[in-house]
């Protein structure tokens, strides 16, 4: 396994809610990433965002790890939930909040509001 793959895995496994997206929550670069982020925020999820754009390698290695071909990708407690369409649909039916509650506990909304992490090695 490459170092990059290992760092991607670390984020997936250690962050309560990981969102691999194009851009950052402050500057979203893709409609689907925006839809996933909005759905997660409306459900009150503490989102840890990873921008896949700085290096095409990130996207490749992420898909190798997750088996999911497209961006965005949402993980809750290490489990792949899906892309924008799935997260939106789960949010509409209330299943997303249920999933968050059962994975993170009743107080999940009180956790930190969200942050951005990088999977690239600092230069």
């Amino acid at each position: 396994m490459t170092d990059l793959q290992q760092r991607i895995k670390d984020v997936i496994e250690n962050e309560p809610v990981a969102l691999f997206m194009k851009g950052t929550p402050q500057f979203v670069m893709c409609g689907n990433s925006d839809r996933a982020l909005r759905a997660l925020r409306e459900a009150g999820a503490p989102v840890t965002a990873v921008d896949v754009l700085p290096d095409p390698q990130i996207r490749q290695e992420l898909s190798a790890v997750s088996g999911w071909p497209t961006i965005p990708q949402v993980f809750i407690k290490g489990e792949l939930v899906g892309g924008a369409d799935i997260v939106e649909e789960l949010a509409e039916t209330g299943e997303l909040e249920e999933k968050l509650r059962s994975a993170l506990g009743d107080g999940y909304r009180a956790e930190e509001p969200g942050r951005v992490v990088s999977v690239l090695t600092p230069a």
Partner: protein
Amino acid sequence: MGAVSVDRLDTLLRSAFPDAGEVHVEDRTGGGDHFQVVVASPRFDGLPLIDQHRLVNEALAEPLRDGTIHELRIKTRGTT
């Protein structure tokens, strides 16, 4: 160019889901790379959403890999 890609995706989906009650591919922007696909198939019955989408992604693996599909929206339905 858009129509060619729509046809290609339509063909791939219909061969992957021969029993589909509905297959619809839409070129969302007219540019031939942003697509919305709708598939209704009994194969989705009882499957979690993520596995339903996984089947669609698998059917479209080639155009996803070769860059034909820049953005994909998926809507799946079972028959129940």
